[in-house]
């Protein structure tokens, strides 16, 4: 055995497994621009949970296939992707507009913004912490466990007129 004996223990291997992966350049800029043109935005505004605009999209079987293949997990195909639009002063806390908390599953978030802002990081917390930068075209795939929480940082005035667009879909384990 080359590695220390601890690395044979399943609980150690489980603890070392990365929370998620970041994949840059996952969408063409034209495709992202088309999604940004969505018109049917709704505003979510509950001060202690978040403030942002969102719009639901139809199911996307290609995203589901990707999530299953990439994470090698059987995932329910029922989830619908949701678009998010965040501007200066917006934020999304751990308890956002979600009606039910995901226990176990895979969450994909695709950044559709026109430019990088240096703000608006997504933070996953739990046994580990994963901070996802705001970068156009960046896809994050995160395996969520019951103790995994997510929030999106408050966007300060330095953001100016920039707008952050994201698409998020969360597939529960089958």
């Amino acid at each position, binding site marked *: 055995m080359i590695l220390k004996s601890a690395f044979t223990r399943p609980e150690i291997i489980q603890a070392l497994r990365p929370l998620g992966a970041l994949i840059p350049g996952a969408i063409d800029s034209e495709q992202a621009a088309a999604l940004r043109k969505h018109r049917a935005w709704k505003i979510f505004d509950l001060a202690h949970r978040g403030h942002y605009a969102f719009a639901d999209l139809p199911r996307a079987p290609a995203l589901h296939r990707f999530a299953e293949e990439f994470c090698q997990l059987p995932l329910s195909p029922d989830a619908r992707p949701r678009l998010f639009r965040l501007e200066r002063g917006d934020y999304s806390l751990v308890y956002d507009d979600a009606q039910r908390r995901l226990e176990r599953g895979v969450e994909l978030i695709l950044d559709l913004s026109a430019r990088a802002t240096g703000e608006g990081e997504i933070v996953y917390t739990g046994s580990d912490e994963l901070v996802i930068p705001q970068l156009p075209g960046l896809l994050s795939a995160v395996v969520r466990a019951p103790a995994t929480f997510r929030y999106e940082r408050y966007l300060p005035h*330095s953001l100016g007129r920039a707008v952050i667009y994201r698409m998020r879909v969360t597939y529960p384990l089958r």
Partner: protein
Amino acid sequence: MIDPSGWNLPALGRAWREAQPFPHVVIDQVLLAADLARVRESFAWEPHAHLRGELYSQMRSAQPPSQPLVQTFCDGLTGPSVRAAVELLSGKRIARGDGNGYVYREGQYLLPHSDHRESEGRAVAFAFYLAAPERGGELELFDCRTRRGEIISTRSARRIRPRANRLVLFDVGARTLHAVREVTRGARMSIAGWYYGR
């Protein structure tokens, strides 16, 4: 240093009870100008760590603060005479208090939340302002509508400017949502904390 004997407690008690969206009072000119200047000078030497979390980006001191004069002021603010005054005006039993120094620089904030923690016994929150930013940093109080104990809508109901030498006291409860609005110019310096019921 801090002497509540000059506070009009019956009037403050009425203001507390009638305040919207939840009980609070604003007390100005808490310290003599010379004392405020001394505490502020001492506060400038107080180490503050940058903390960033789900709800905040802020600079926070240790508890208790390390600068002797800041500590003395903090002890006075949470000491027996002020606690007795807070008890009278709020009608809540106050057993003890503690506080930290806070600095909010440009771009820093505290998002809407309640200070209520069942296990900790926080009864009344306080914030004493040592220096006001040029823009932003207001204490914002929210009105909440509930259904079956759940908050179903929130509305910004009052913004209190963080003027130097101002003390704000507000009720702690599950629905007393408040925030520190982002500072957009200058720095906001305060000593803030809680009075506890046990």
